[in-house]
């Protein structure tokens, strides 16, 4: 479904991504985990085609998209959706207008069908009754759920999440994590970027660990915890100390 082959990227003379390769199957939830500034969000931007790469290939559904002209690249992006860390909601539009924005622009549906889709997706993310509110009238958790709703409404095959729970309180954080888990049931392929280990363990079918723009380990959480890499062992230090969590991971994979 998503394949990154030897992606390298320099920004202002600094190497941001160093021969990054990834392969994510259809319907899978893949988590890219690493410390701040490691290049996690850059990978999402590369998949979206928002950053031009110096070397490598981005292949979505068997089609190489990084070298496409802008017009075709915009078309290719329509099978993807993204939930930005900042949510990137249109602050001059209401909740329902934000949700319907990209659907309206596609021109594929009648107004009645759009209204129906918006209603369904707002209900899916538990935002019923907020249709007329503006983003600045919503809490942090509600904004995040609205961003998810906006991403979901176009029925994308792939959804990318940039730090989905950062800045949220535990209750809202749990609600967003549950929402992402529910996406699996509808067959959506998700790529999640986070630095929060518990979120990664909870959500990821597979994980990639990134340090200084280089993927240093990739696979299931069980495989990653067996790694002898010094950075991986240091990053997961608290997990190694938590025997109940280790047992839970062991049981899950079995």
């Amino acid at each position: 479904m998503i394949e990154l082959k030897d992606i390298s990227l320099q920004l202002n003379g600094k190497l941001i991504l160093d021969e990054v390769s990834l392969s994510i199957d259809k319907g899978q939830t893949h988590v890219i985990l690493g410390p701040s500034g490691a290049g996690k969000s850059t990978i999402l931007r590369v998949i979206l085609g928002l950053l031009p790469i110096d070397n490598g290939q981005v292949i979505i559904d068997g089609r190489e998209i990084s070298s496409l002209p802008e017009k075709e690249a915009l078309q290719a992006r329509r099978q993807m959706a993204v939930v930005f860390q900042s949510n990137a909601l249109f602050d001059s539009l209401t909740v329902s207008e934000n949700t319907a924005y990209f659907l309206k622009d596609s021109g594929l549906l009648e107004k009645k069908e759009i209204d129906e889709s918006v209603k369904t997706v707002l209900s899916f993310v538990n935002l019923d009754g907020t249709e007329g509110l503006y983003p600045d009238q919503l809490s942090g958790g509600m904004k995040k759920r609205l961003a998810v709703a906006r991403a979901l409404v176009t029925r994308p095959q792939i959804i990318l999440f940039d730090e989905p729970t950062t800045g949220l309180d535990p209750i809202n954080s749990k609600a967003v994590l549950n929402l992402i888990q529910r996406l699996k049931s509808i067959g959506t392929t998700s790529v999640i970027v986070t630095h929060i280990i518990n979120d990664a363990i909870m959500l990821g079918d597979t994980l990639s660990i990134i340090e200084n723009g280089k993927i240093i380990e990739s696979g299931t959480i069980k495989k990653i915890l067996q790694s002898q890499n010094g950075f991986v062992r240091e990053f997961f230090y608290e997990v190694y100390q938590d025997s109940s969590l280790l047992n839970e991971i062991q049981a899950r994979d079995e």
Partner: protein
Amino acid sequence: MNEDESTIKVSFTEKIQKLQDYSLMVADVFRLSPSIGKNRASVLSEMYLIGTQAVFLVLVGGLFTGVILAIETGHNLEKFGATLMISRTVSYGMIRELGPAITGLLLAARTGAKNTSEIGAMQLSEQIDALKAFGLNPVEKLVIPRVFAALIMFLPLTMIADMAGILGGMFITNMTFNIDLAYFWNTAIHILQFKDIFVGAFKPILFSFFIASISCFYGLITRGGTTNLGKNAIHSVVTSSMVVILLDFIFTKVVWEIM
């Protein structure tokens, strides 16, 4: 190469790069302008924001420009017993030069600051990236509606400023130099020829395109944080104002040579 030369070289390269990026954006505006029908709601909304809401500003600007023009020329013409010429001066001055220029400068500040800060804030809050990520072109969604709204609204706004200036000039001339209102009005309107109307009508259309496109461009290239947004808003207003003044000169010179 010493440090100063190196800085000048970098600064020059950056300016050329900006000019190239601006040209590419303008090319996109032309290429994507057939999509305007799809964005007519945005055009109407922008017409209200940059047009209707600016009426009072250009009305006041035009009125006092006409009043000052009448007083200044009136006192000089009075020395030669030629106060009857005030109406001609005010009419030509407002329609051909000061009306479009003052309106252009006022709108460069108002519309320029609005467009740059709005689009720049969208850039900083990743809303522009969201548009691109969902397969939409920001030039089509954000720049074209603003450029079209400016193209539609700047001419009527300039006409309002022209009319306010002539009327202001007329009343102040009547009060200060005892020139008959009807005489002033008839002279001011009847001396205008096609050339004058053409110059007065074409300038705002030209200005509107550059003001709207330059201010949107500075919004789109905003990076970093709010400090850069503030800097870009300044660059946008300064560049737009310079372009208005330069185009005003070039256009006046060319028209006088040709017509």
